[in-house]
């Protein structure tokens, strides 16, 4: 069965459907590309892809199937997966099911057989854009109307947990504010023996304090950081009181809360090979990234923030820290999955600041 992908600029692609096959309804999303050669399972289950159609630049996807362990959330949030070739006969010792079966199960449309490099080049040159996926039968005259639909700005609300959840551990208590967290952020904390409470994105400061946390982690999440202005005040209060570590969306709202600005990037950073330069050590780390917005570096000057890391290639802000409080952030994903875990030590650094804060508090 064929499916059509129509970009906002009018470009049409026809490919073969290999996931859920929408017959009547259309699927609307923002098309973005990811350059990771492995890790499709993690990517498609990363809540940050909410409302996005992901093009994998590597042409063979699904080679090792889908396994029990590599999900970054229980329910994939992405709108569609676009690949050159889906593997019909996957093989890996952990393989449980084919990628196509997983996609069908979660009602995610998927297209294979299109020139994904051409699509990627369009996005690189013209920026990520809205697109629709429709069946061949859909009347062409409808495209315009369908593309005019709004994607909304409630992505975080949709992927964030509705109720707090407790993941017990013997160590520091960390409140993980869920903008759409990847499972491995939680795991990275649990591995370090933390006692983690995951809370909805809009949890109030008061409610957070009621958990008596030792530190706060703001997670990754989908969409525009400016969609959740209601959280900024909470963040300002948090950083005054608790050691704070922010990842991806967390990094962006942390910047906004401190008076910096964010902007939409042309096509974002999505992949497992982005070099980040640490300005203090002058060392470069290869990082896993997934973001379409970035903190404006010129907006930092008038804040109490300091740029700690930049992207080696386009010099965008990759890391910030607060000059007064033990609060810091990174734009990329130190929890990896997929991609390199060269920066997993950031979790240790965070917990160290948590520990120092405790010692300081004990002295007081």
């Amino acid at each position, binding site marked *: 069965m064929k499916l059509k992908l129509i970009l906002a600029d009018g470009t049409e692609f026809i490919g073969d459907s290999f996931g859920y096959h929408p017959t009547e309804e259309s699927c609307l999303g923002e098309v973005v590309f990811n350059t990771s*050669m492995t890790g499709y399972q993690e990517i498609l289950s990363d809540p940050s892809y909410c409302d996005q159609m992901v093009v994998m630049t590597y042409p063979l996807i699904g080679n090792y199937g889908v396994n029990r362990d590599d999900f970054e959330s229980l329910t994939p949030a992405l709108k569609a997966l676009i690949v050159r070739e889906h593997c019909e006969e996957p093989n890996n010792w952990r393989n449980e099911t084919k990628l196509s079966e997983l996609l069908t199960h979660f009602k995610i449309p998927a297209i294979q057989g299109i020139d994904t490099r051409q699509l990627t080049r369009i996005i690189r040159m013209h920026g990520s854009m809205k697109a629709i996926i429709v069946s061949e039968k859909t009347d062409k005259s409808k495209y315009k109307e369908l593309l005019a639909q709004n994607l909304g700005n409630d992505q975080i609300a949709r992927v964030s947990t509705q109720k707090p959840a407790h993941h017990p551990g013997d160590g520091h208590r960390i409140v993980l504010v869920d903008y759409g967290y990847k499972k491995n952020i939680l795991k990275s904390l649990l591995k370090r023996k933390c006692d983690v409470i995951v809370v909805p994105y809009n949890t109030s400061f008061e409610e957070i304090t009621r958990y008596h946390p030792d530190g706060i982690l703001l997670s990754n999440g989908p969409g525009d950081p400016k969609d959740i202005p209601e959280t900024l005040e909470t963040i300002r209060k948090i950083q005054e009181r608790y050691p704070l570590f922010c990842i991806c969306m967390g990094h962006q709202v942390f910047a906004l809360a401190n008076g910096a600005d964010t902007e939409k990037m042309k096509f974002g950073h999505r992949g497992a090979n982005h070099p980040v330069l640490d300005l203090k050590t002058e060392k470069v780390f290869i990082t896993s990234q997934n973001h379409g917005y970035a903190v404006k570096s010129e907006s930092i000057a008038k804040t109490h923030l300091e740029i700690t890391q930049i992207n080696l290639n386009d010099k965008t802000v990759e890391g910030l820290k607060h000059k007064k409080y033990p609060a810091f952030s990174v734009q990329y994903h130190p929890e990896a999955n997929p991609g390199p875990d060269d920066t997993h030590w950031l979790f240790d650094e965070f917990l160290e600041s948590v520990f120092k804060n405790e010692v300081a508090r004990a002295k007081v």
Partner: protein
Amino acid sequence: MPKYKDINRVLVIGSGPIIIGQAAEFDYSGTQAVQALKEAGLEVILINSNPATIMTDSDIADKVYIEPLTKDFLLKVLYLERPDGVIPTLGGQTALNLAMELAEDGFFERENIKLLGCDPDVIRKAEDRLLFRNVLESIGEPFCESVIVSNLSDAKVFADRIGYPLVIRPAFTLGGTGGGHVHSETELEAIVKSGLQNSPIKQVLVEKSIAGYKEIEYEVMRDEKDNAIIICNMENIDPVGVHTGDSIVVAPSQTLSDREYQLLRNSSLKIIRTLGIKGGCNVQLALDPHSYKYFVIEVNPRVSRSSALASKATGYPIAKIAAKIAVGFTLDEMINPITKTSYACFEPTLDYVVTKIPRWPFDKFVTANRKLGTQMKATGEVMAIGRNLEESMLKAVRSLEIGTHHLELEKLKTYSKEELLKALDLIDDERLFVLAEALRKGITPEVIVAKTKIDMFFVQKIFNIVKMENKLTTENLTPELMLKAKRIGITDRKIASLKKIKEDEVFDFRLKNKIIPVYKMIDTCASEFASTTPYYYSTYEVENEVSASSKKKIIVLGSGPIRIGQGIEFDYATVHAVQAIREMGLEAIIINSNPETVSTDFNISDRLYFEPLYIEDIYHIILQEKPEGVIVQFGGQTAINLAEPLSKKGVKILGTTLENIDRSEDRKKFEALLKDLHIAQPMGVTARSSEEALQRAKEIGFPVIIRPSYVIGGRAMQIVYGDTDLLHYMKSAVHVNPEHPVLIDRYMIGKELEVDAICDGQDVIIPGIMEHIEKAGVHSGDSIAVYPPQSIEKKILDELVETTIKISKALETKGLINIQFILSNDKLYVLEVNPRSSRTVPFLSKVTKIPMAKIATKFILGETIKSLKLKSGLQPDQALVSVKAPVFSFAKLVDVDIALGPEMKSTGEVMGRDHTFEKALYKSLLAAGIKIPQFGTILVTVADKDKDEAVQLMKRYYRLGFKFLATAGTAKALREAKLPVREVRKIHESTPNLLDEVRSGHAQLVINTLSKGKDVASDGFQVRRAAVESGVHCLTSLDTTSALIKALENHNYGVEPLES
């Protein structure tokens, strides 16, 4: 500006001659690195003994020494030049070992010369198995249980404890020489012994075998700031057990989940950091296909064959960056040379699939053991790029030039299911084809996986190809089906044969339905960054990324994989042709499939198409580029063979016309040509059946040289002395049929002479003439060649020049021409004319300082001797004598007779250059790696016809202090000449016999001219093999023996008593 204030002049050590395990990849990386160092503001001095390289061109480094890569000569250059630093990590194991040798002596500290890009401690830790194991242990990285032994009994103790199978790896050897898998105590004994023999530090590693694990490689780079990145990971389709150089490899890894990818990535980075390597490094790992368990196999702390492959597979120039790191640059300050818009400190990402298939020499060495194991046997490799695995693999298959354009071998078609099942158990060069044939005959993927341990993923991909064949056979050829077939890389020819239609019909059908390939760019970043790198591959997609250029363009065809008979020399000429085209202001486009070479460096040409040298693929590029024409004369026989099919398609062949090429290659026409010109040639005939061959051979008289028509490098050529030999040859060596007759020539004994000339269609330049040391009968590629000739009368040389001019003119040659002569009883005969660049062009270009390929290209494009203000005729001799000596890889190839004959066997060449012939010869032999004994014992066993000559030569060896071992016949002859000889037993006699003498190191040189041929059981064969395997040099020609004594006499002082 140089980064290190005190480093302004550096010496780069090259890798020397091409041998199995160390090939053209070091010309590619070396050339790139030298250019990078110059870019960094350094003065670069190079030492390399291999004249057939771009690296040793005078315009690459600031100063080039083509001298033997031995400690003595390296020291001479170092003392003369006094560089600030030495870079030994770009010249393979050869360079690294040399530098380590000097480091052990404390040379670098003593002389205050820095060893750059390499810390001897690091190298020791990476290469000494025990030290490396300690390093792994200290960082908790897993390694296979093993023991390092320096004697057999320790190996046995370990084997008793661990059990079989085990793998034996000698320390510090090229391509794992002397190692292997063993399944029993007998095998253990044999391989441990040869391993100890081969290891320069007399150590071997005995290790638990993990055959069946996935073999994964990571190419890693690190700088002095400790930035460390992965350039590329690669997965061997062949599981652990086959040397990675002999494995079919894909990039990136295909069957690894991100967890597994990162697990091994982390391990690789941890290792390079712990070792403290600055520059490039290759880490090989074995991953259990059923768990996260893995083992580190080994690291190569330098650029390697794998790094060359990774560079071509990703576009990331590893050698260039490694060279800059060696002189102080860091990854984060260097721009990615491909995109020019991003930095070198990142990890390339691919949006295509790369397949590498090794090219093995078994078509030449029919007796060789084809089994693949830990000892590398391939001479070269091909790489192919596609948007899916099938396409990439099929393109690689047709790049191999092994007589098939599809994943099938004619000989396997008749195999029954049972035979195929049996064949699947063999791990040899044909396994991939056996696998496909097995699937065709209904053997299930499960059975194949169980037998081969090849991952199901790959087997299924091959199955997809077979399924498509079935579809093509049974279904109607719709545009949809056609597109699907083309997308997975099936050729028009295969589609035509399955559909039983003409190939042209398939092509026309495609054209009508617009099913033609587009070209995509290799850009290191999956198009995330804008890039203008002119490096392309074809695929059946939508968007074409090659933008039409209005400039005049010339396409140059490369020479494909390195194989015996068609080596790096042709890549050298190809690169020069491209340079000349660009000098003339035209656009030069290269098509080639060899990842190891300079010609496939994207910086060389205006556009590089990394594509099979297969007519369909080439024609597509021609349709895309619409060039002025195609140059075929630099890419060896590969390119020449494409002249006719291209011409048939209406493509203009530039240079010597197809008709004239044919006149030199078609035997009948060639005979007629020489007759017209009144030029003599040895009497020859053609035969189309065994009976005819016998009759005609009798007519011209034995001995005869017999060979199939249209061959490269004298393949399957043999000297035949009588009826039985001849019939045996006809039965075993060739498939004779009316279309492919055999050629029979009278075997003439005489001096061989060779000339390369350049002709503009009217006038001829002859840069020089070469005289061969070995008599006719030894392939010219295996002979020692001397420039200028040393023993030829002027009258003969004049005649030779005249004949060369006559032939060149008669063939209206435009470009290069190579002519081989034989001087027999003072009469000159023409043996062979090759209307193309030859093996000797780089050598002759270097020694005469005449850039032959460049001039030839300019002639092809319309310049003339006059317009370029050159002088026609034979050019004056140079003051120095230059000797080109062949280099062999016999140690790697079991069951191959090392005796020189009409079939070429050498893999590489070296050059010796000095003021006298003797000195130049001595240097060339040293450079060839021959351990020349200054005194000691020579084991002599010669055929009866050679006895007199041998005795005369032995008298001279005796005077220098040699004594002799010989079997009865030869011993008698030596005794009669009053030479000191100890008689030894023949092989079939009781032990200790002659083999034992060789194996126990009682002889320092072996001279053997016995029973040449393919009979593996013959005494001569066994003695020669025993010599190779014991590391004793073996001479199989008295001409070489005579040359050697000349060199030795010149080098040594004899002693004589006073006459009383």
